[in-house]
């Protein structure tokens, strides 16, 4: 019997993500008060956070304000950041809260106006008009319908999660999503002839 030592084929699986560690360094530096490190974190995530805020608010000026508030809140609360979650996920949660807090004064009115399924607003476009951008069509949705669509259809929230975050009933969330999809389909010319 011959025993020879050989080397097993190397399979490392997924290597550690260097981006993650670079982010840790930036977080550590920001915790020391280094604003340049925080600026670097901002640059990494501003695109995703701005997209979320723009879609939730439907307005560029409000989205910009929300982004500013989100990063200021993040700077203040960086010490409470739980490393179990990713920074982007954490920023995402802050952004949703910021947008909803800014809209809170209108919340009751929105719930009254949009909670029940009413007739769809006139959104259909004539066949001769140019195709409508999906982002623009989302921005034109009523606030309540847009928020549910953004959270559930774009960012993967369950209806239960969306209802909790938005402070509405689960049934309302479902109704709003149905309404948003119907409005979007009409707006984008996706309805069956």
């Amino acid at each position, binding site marked *: 019997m011959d025993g020879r030592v*050989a*080397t097993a084929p190397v399979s*490392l699986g997924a290597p550690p993500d260097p981006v993650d*560690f670079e982010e840790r*360094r930036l977080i550590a530096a920001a*915790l020391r008060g280094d604003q340049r490190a925080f600026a670097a974190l901002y*640059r990494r995530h*501003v695109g995703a956070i701005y*997209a979320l805020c723009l879609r939730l608010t439907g307005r560029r000026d409000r989205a910009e304000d929300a982004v500013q508030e989100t990063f200021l809140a993040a700077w203040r609360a960086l010490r409470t950041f739980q490393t179990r979650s990713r920074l982007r996920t954490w920023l995402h949660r802050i952004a949703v809260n910021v947008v909803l807090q800014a809209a809170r004064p209108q919340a009751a009115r929105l719930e009254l106006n949009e909670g029940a399924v009413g007739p769809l607003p006139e959104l259909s476009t004539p066949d001769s008009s140019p195709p409508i951008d999906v982002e623009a069509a989302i921005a034109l949705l009523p606030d309540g319908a847009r928020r549910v669509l953004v959270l559930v259809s774009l960012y993967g929230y369950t209806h239960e999660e969306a209802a909790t975050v938005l402070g509405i009933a689960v049934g309302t969330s479902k109704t709003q999503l149905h309404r948003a999809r119907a409005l979007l389909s009409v707006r984008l010319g996706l309805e069956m002839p």
Partner: protein
Amino acid sequence: MKLDDKPRASLEDALARLPQEIVPTHDLWPRIEAALHDEMSARPPASRVVFGLVAGCLLGAVAMSVLWGVRAPGTSGLLARDAASVMAARSQLATTYRTRLPLLDAPTRVRVERALGVIQAAEQDLAQSRRAAPDSAVLSRLYASTTRQEFDLYDAIVRATEPFVRRTST
């Protein structure tokens, strides 16, 4: 396919094609930086905060010593022994890792060394931050998970290059 499946599918496609990120039309950082600057200048001086923290810790320590008297015996000895054994195990693993590294093919070795470099740089940075703020829970967690990643990397390489005995019938 039901009649209303087609528009739903098309809508889902349209939504799925939306980008994850949208670049703002202008740079928002200057506004944020200005607001941060305003906040920082409105804060009490750091020396006063540090003095308050130190005073608070001292008060807490005095209160604890009055309430509990002498600390439970032997705890620090146990902790020190645990830490020493972890460090010894890690050091041994790191040594094995270094002897096994040449067994990897060149591109993998480069990838591994690059990843380890990033991890160790993060570790050093975090250690430096912890010296400045030893009570920071976030820094402690980040440091612990980073050292764990380093340990895991050594472990993965050592396991992947584990020699085995090939038996032949001749």
